[in-house]
């Protein structure tokens, strides 16, 4: 599993960085930041390739003594960087790829959140993703639900206040969801009222 996952905006500022060994967060920040050198170089190298043939997965960016840094870039030039422990030999290229793909899906979910403003730093509980993803598979499905949950940004005061609850719920109702998790704290009796 990854020790650090980062989502970097098109303009190269971090949208989201989380690392498991929290005591040396700064080190991972630097690691992710420096890896952008390679990402930039790779992106500019493949700039000429056709858009539909473009591989989003950038592969191993650079190895350090203790970690491996992998990169992935979406078509909108949002970058994902994943730092993996060098000693973890279980993670092959394919696993990394699928982790990135799942990360991309989660990111897409965040983007679908009507309350998320593209370009803002992601401050949702989606944050838990890299930490809990001990093996690609099971935990991710849970993460997806969590990320849907994340559509209600915890940090935003608007959506936390009791008065605005009804409005959010009604919006919420527009999202095609069937999972009971998404029912939310206060079920709405009259959805029209909120609209």
């Amino acid at each position, binding site marked *: 599993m990854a020790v650090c996952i980062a989502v970097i905006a098109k*303009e*190269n*500022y*971090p949208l989201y*960085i989380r690392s498991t060994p929290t005591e040396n*967060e*700064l080190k991972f*920040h*630097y690691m992710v*930041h*420096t890896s*952008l*050198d*390679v990402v930039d*170089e790779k992106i500019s190298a493949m700039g000429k390739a056709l858009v539909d043939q473009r591989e989003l997965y950038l592969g191993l*960016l*650079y190895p*350090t*003594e203790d970690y491996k840094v992998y990169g992935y870039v979406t078509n909108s030039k949002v970058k994902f960087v994943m730092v993996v422990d060098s000693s973890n030999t279980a993670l092959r290229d394919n696993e990394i790829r699928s982790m990135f793909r799942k990360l991309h899906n989660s990111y897409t979910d965040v983007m679908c959140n009507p*309350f998320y*403003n*593209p*370009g*803002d730093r992601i401050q949702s509980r989606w944050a838990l993703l890299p930490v809990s993803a001990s093996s690609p598979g099971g935990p991710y499905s849970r993460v997806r639900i969590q990320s849907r949950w994340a559509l209600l940004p915890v940090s*935003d*005061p*608007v959506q936390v*206040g009791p008065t605005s609850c009804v409005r959010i719920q009604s919006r919420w109702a527009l999202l095609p969801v069937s999972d009971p998790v998404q029912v939310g704290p206060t079920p709405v009796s009259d959805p029209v009222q909120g609209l």
Partner: protein
Amino acid sequence: MSPTQWDLPVELCCRPMAFVTLTGLDVVYNAVHRAVWDAFCANRRADRVPISFKVLPGDHEYPKCRPKRTSYEWYIPKGILKTGWMNKHLNLVPALVVVFYELDWDEPQWKEKQSECATRVEIVRQSLQGRNTKVAVVLIQKKTPLPPGEDVIASERAAALCNACELSGKSLFVLPHTDHLVGYIIRLENAFYEHAQTYYYTEIRRVKSHKEFLNKTTHQLLFVRHQFKIAFFSELKQDTQNALKNYRTAYNLVHELRAHETNILEIKTMAGFINYKICRLCFQHNTPLDAIAQFRKHIDLCKKKIGSAELSFEHAAWMSKQFQAFGDLFDEAIKLGLTAIQTQNPGFYYQQAAYYAQERKQLAKSLCNHEASIMYPNPDPLETQTGVLDFYGQRSWRQGILSFDLSDPEKEKVGVLAIQLKERNVAHSEIIITLLSNAVAQFKKYKCPRMKSHLMVQMGEEYYYAKDYTKALKLLDYVMCDYRSEGWWTLLTSILTTALKCSYLMAQLKDYITYSLELLGRASTLKDDQKSRIEKNLINVLMNESPDPEPDCDIFAVKTAQKLWADRISLAGSNIFTIGVQDFVPFVQCKAKFHAPSFHVDVPVEFDIYLKADCPHPIRFSKLCVSFNNQEYNQFCVIEEASKANEVLENPTQGKMCLVPGKTRKLLFKFVAKTEDVGKKIEITSVDLALGNETGRCVVLNWQGGGGDAASSQEALQAARSFKRRPKLPDNEVHWDSIIIQASTMIISRVPNISVHLRHEPPALTNEMYCLVVTVQSHEKTQIRDVKLTAGLKPGQDANLTQKTHVTLHGTELCDESYPALLTDIPVGDLHPGEQLEKMLYVRCGTVGSRMFLVYVSYLINITAEEKEIVCKCHKDETVTIETVFPFDVAVKFVSTKFEHLERVYADIPFLLMTDLLSASPWALTVVSSELQLAPSMTTVDQLESQVDNVVLQTGESASECFCLRCPSLGNVEGGVATGHYIISWKRTSAMENIPVIRTVITLPHVIVENIPLHVNADLPSFGRVRESLPVKYHLQNKTDFVQDVEISVEPSDAFMFSGLKQIRLRILPGTEQEMLYNFYPLMAGYQQLPSLNINLLRFPNFTNQLLRRFIPTSIFVKPQGRLMDDTSIAAA
């Protein structure tokens, strides 16, 4: 223990070359010998064979060869590799000893010389006792040798000499001291090289031969040693492939050794040496990937072999060295042409080396923190008798002891302590910084700006630890902006925190304040308690007091810093710091916004300054001033603590200087713009916010333009993208994000309160004095002064229009070219409220088409704005588009007297000129008169009187005139004959009496004049009457200079009877006229065909009747017989 303990030995790092000593050369006193030596040494380029030469005296003592061991059975090696071994074979034990001897073949005292030479060789052989070193003799000769075989004496004596010296013929050389010295030397060298290779080959064989005596239990070390020696000799032999192979084997063997805490250093040292050799050779063989793979393997194998925990810093130092050495090798290979890439370049190795150096420092710090009372042990356990170790990587206090048990734990303790104490004196930071700066140089080369920044941060931090705060600050300050511009706030905060410490420790006021400002700002990710502390310190500094020390600083440094701060306080002087905020993210944000993009000059200009503090506690500012591009306004836009009466209105006065965290403070400013600035842009060039006061210390935050700092543009972009609904706020509060900076506004003139009306009758007619009535009425409440009118063609249209448009105020006279197209600033005088004035303008348009006319009225008015009397200049303009058309169309045609259309006229024969004036004007026109001015070639038949005087033409009506003209014969004129001009004087019917009449001149078309030979015209009454005689007289005029024969016949007609000559042939003399008289007698009433007259000219066959019919009538109207007899008609009959 030298500081270079971890450095690889020189003899390991150099390229091994065959060692050859030259004896018998006196390079000091003998010029010939000197030249020979120089030829050997100088210009040793790559194409020369790799030999290292050394001049030694003939009786030099070479290292003694130890007696050959016959059995290894009882031999126990004491270490892997002796420290002197490599050097011995590189620089001490030669592969070949060359004896130089001056001897010519024809030497008279040959015998003596020969034996002397033999003695010398013998001496050399003596000192090389037991070694396989080859000996060669070079005879330095003055004469050029003859070709081989020709010199009998030479070959004889050579054989004799070889015998005497016990040399093979291959080891005897002749060096003629002639012009081609270098050539001979190169040949000699090559021969030496061969001997040397043979020597090393035998050495390799010799070492290999030991192998069979070894056993795996006691001689493990020897396996490594021998393998290393074989590889090293192969290298000396320049057999790098085999060398590499043997080094690889040696490397594997070294890791097979039983490792224990006591010998781990020796194993690592040797592994490091061999690894270095392998990597070096791989790069040399241009297989860098092999080198990298080997290095990775090496690191992976050795990473965990830390050894004694008390000396773990040694492991870190060793690791650091491994990376550094590899980085050096890599870099060297690149210099020799290898290409590296972004993700695989020496920088990574230097970086890792630096990382291990940092680790070494950390470990050393924790392991070597002995109290000052602990003295360095005496006697020094690190001293050895010889001053050097016997074997690489062994401990000096237990050299050659292979037992894994510590025989003397006390001694071990002392040794460890000595190492630890020595480690304490190592300048770790220096090592780290050197490595980091190496890495920086590499990453710069391989397009890794962020990596470079990261390393520079580390360098800065290292300088900080090394207490070189100036350098630390310089580096940190340099990279800060990279992190800031990319929005990596966490990293920026960490850098700023270090920078703040540096600036505190140096008591750098301005830096300290700047970093504090940013650490309190929104870009900082510090916790609130940290921010509180920094804010408190900042306030202290502003009050000219010392700040509290930053946490985690060196205690001694803090003491020094406190002294420095105390000095700063007592030091009077400039205590005002202006800090430009555009390059960083301070804790106060500012946005300026004009209320409107433009202001009328009579309205005060209003704008808001929004301030927001991001620090944890409220902060007071002492002054806020706004600067404009026109500095005269600056004085109106200042808020100061002291001053009471101010322009700020909305905010309650108390607390307005206080910024509450998170709250947006709005400050309203108002000022009246200067009238000179009408039409100009007023721009806020900067906003200055002063914190602290001038008695203490004062920091002026300076925003360029209307606010905004390093982070605000990105924030504004995000805010613009956001569609998040913002919570409702109380009325006078605004959301910070929703404020958009508007730093400039236009000053526009006051709205005029007058009306301007234009009255006219379009379209204008060409050349007429078109009347435009301008009515200006004042609706102002006070008198307006200095009313000026500018009227005419609107500038900026077609330049030709300017030439053909003229404007005047006086309609009574026609204006000409000298009149302008635009009348400017016609003073009209003053106007009282409600007063109205009218001004007539006359425009003359010379060409048709549409024109834009501008009427611009300006005036001055006194206005009171904000209790200030200002004189405003107002203006109002009206534009009107006027079409100009031709007043009429004039058509001119030539007709014969019979009103038949003429294409050409005939000389001397009268014709008619008809003019047709068709009014195209929508307004009635009065044709005052018309005039025909004939060209000199034309003559008139009757009076030229105008027939259309004072005719009024409505639209579409036409007035025609007819003039009878004659053109005398002029001969053949190309293009016709000018007719003259037709001049029409006209005006609008509606125009006033005094408006001048316009004369329109029309040039009449040219006409082609043709001569005809015979002109016939008929005299006949205008009508006939049935059964009444109708006399007709035909005049035939000969227009030529010849006598003409004319055949005339008259064809009968049913309607007439006639008398006269029916057919005749006659002659007409030149210029004369013949009359023919007929009497027709009409029989029928109505329009009747006359009996046609046919004329045939014998000389001019093309004079046809067709032409004739133009001149003479072909029919006549015959009236019926009336009841009342007309006397005249009877008389005529």
